[in-house]
């Protein structure tokens, strides 16, 4: 029976269910999540010193020794002190050693802004991670998707980075009781349409759906696609949609430079059939390329929202 739960509860459920299933899974974080700690105790849900770098490395060593660690970096901000372990070690260790050993690790981390916590605590740097070979990555937008992808991530035999959207933590959504996973590399068409494709990420999926609702009243039919996983990226679903609509807008909370949005546009336009079907240049609706400012009206000005998505759509359809 489907129930309504929040995005954050869906993540906790996913982890708890997997931890019940497999005792090799344990959780490391500078702030142990209460519900998990209560159920599994302090040896499997470890409260650690504030040393994200060491935790990340320790997860690699434990994974290489037969465990399936979960590390919660908490804000992606704090992952930056662990960059050596992420970039030089976790991403490369399977390949560099000739595939000898598997390193199943889930790295959880929260991304996004909207919290009035200014530049250091409001970041969406997933394209920095996408640039690395060897890390699977997802950025889900609903409780259903985040639960299914978190479970898939825990069962995956690779280091996986799950970007959890801070803005969506309290979002309610339907989640079934039964066990399910969502495979990496499968986009989801969140709304079907015929005039323009909007590929949106995380919070912007919901803004794009709101934009689509508004434009439907004007007779503009918007298709909204959520890639859900960033690595691998489901280029096929995006291309098929753009071949149908002939128009592409990509909406993301990160800045545009070398971004997921840039990658999505490349994946679409470098495909001959998709390129031929295009009736207008694609458009990116992204944050401004600035550190995120504190004052509410400044922060809100930096991020894209439904209105900017509507503007982007109008531009590509020339209305």
């Amino acid at each position, binding site marked *: 029976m489907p129930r309504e739960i929040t995005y954050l509860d869906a993540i906790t459920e996913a982890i708890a269910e997997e931890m019940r299933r497999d005792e090799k899974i344990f959780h490391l974080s500078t702030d142990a999540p209460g519900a998990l700690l209560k159920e599994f105790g302090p040896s499997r849900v470890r409260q650690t010193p504030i040393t994200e770098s060491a935790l990340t490395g320790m997860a690699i060593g434990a*994974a*290489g020794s037969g*465990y399936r660690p979960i590390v919660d970096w908490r804000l992606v901000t704090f992952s930056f002190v662990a960059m050596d*372990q992420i970039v030089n070690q976790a991403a490369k260790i399977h390949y560099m*050693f000739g595939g*000898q050993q598997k390193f199943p690790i889930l790295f959880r981390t929260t991304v996004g802004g909207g919290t009035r916590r200014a530049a250091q605590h409001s970041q969406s740097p997933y394209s920095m991670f996408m640039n690395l070979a060897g890390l699977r990555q997802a950025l889900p937008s609903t409780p259903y998707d985040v639960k299914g992808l978190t479970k898939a991530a825990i069962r995956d*035999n690779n280091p996986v980075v799950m970007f959890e959207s801070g803005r969506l933590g309290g979002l309610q959504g339907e989640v079934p009781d039964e066990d399910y996973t969502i495979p990496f590399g499968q986009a989801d068409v969140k709304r079907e349409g015929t005039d323009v494709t909007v590929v949106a990420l995380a919070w912007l999926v919901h803004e794009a759906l709101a934009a689509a609702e508004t434009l439907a009243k004007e007779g503009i039919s918007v298709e909204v696609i959520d890639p859900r996983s960033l690595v691998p990226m489901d280029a096929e679903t995006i291309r098929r949609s753009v071949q149908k609509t002939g128009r592409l807008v990509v909406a993301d909370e990160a800045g545009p430079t070398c971004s997921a949005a840039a990658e999505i546009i490349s994946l679409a336009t470098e495909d001959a059939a998709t390129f031929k079907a295009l009736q207008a240049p694609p458009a990116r609706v992204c944050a401004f390329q600035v550190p995120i400012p504190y004052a509410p009206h400044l922060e809100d000005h930096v991020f894209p929202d439904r209105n900017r998505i509507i503007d982007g759509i109008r531009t590509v359809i020339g209305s």
Partner: protein
Amino acid sequence: MTVSPDMQRNMLRQMQTIRRFEEHASEGFLAGDIYGVVHCYIGEEAVAVGVCATLTREDKIISTHRGHGHCIAKGADLKRMMAELYGRETGYCKGKGGSMHIADFEIGMLGANGIVAGGISIITGAGLAAQMDGNGAVAVCFFGDGASNAGPFHESINIAASWKLPVIYVCENNLWAVNVPAENSLAVTDVAARAAGYGIPGKIVDGNDALAVYEAASEAVAHARNGGGPTLIECKTYRHRAHTERADQPDARPKAEIEAWMAKDPIDQLAAHLKGQQGQLTEDEWAAMDADVMSEVEAAIAFAKASPFPSTDSVSQDVFAD
């Protein structure tokens, strides 16, 4: 602590294997058959061998950029090691790693590492795994004096000490980090002094004396196996060669210092000790042992040279595990 003559002979043989292997690694590098960069461990063999002699196959180690000695001491296959240096398909990493990235997970060798201090937290995680397994296994971290100034050393030792993880941190203090003397980078004379700040035992050992290293490591390993937590062992040693093998490389180290340490060669010392022990090693036996080691190394070279280079199709393999 008494170490049986047999065991001493085994240790001597391993040390000589490391030396002969690396003499060839250097030759192969200068001949252009081995690529990139080769850091030789020659002069420091007593550390890897003395420590690994106290370990079982279930125990894990991690190494540094200067990793051949640790691999050999933990029991790695010379053929697959040499093939990796030659960039061949039959190498430990199928030609994708090279000298700085040899690992053998089957024998608990979690890899050389090209990042100074990069392996310290990884092996600490293996120590956590051993503690959770509860089977008495330990994890050993080899690292340099240079690495002891980096964050991962301090973060990892702090966690290992707080959680009483079965990890032995073995600092190979060869007095230099590339061309920088350790005294320029450390405000304390001894790396071992830092143990006090983490509430764990810190020991200083003559790193050119394999038996002294063995004794210190045995104690630390027993302490860790019994749930006592980590120990920091500082082995004072010296590399005989420049930081890396490179014909034109200047070496900042004073000649007299190099010569003084060459005179304390760890292999000569152990051989002399065995010879002095009521003839536990004769000149002939020693010559035969060396010849045996040489033929093993030569077989490894022949294996490497006869092995194919990996096909270019393999570049996309193993980016992700199945």
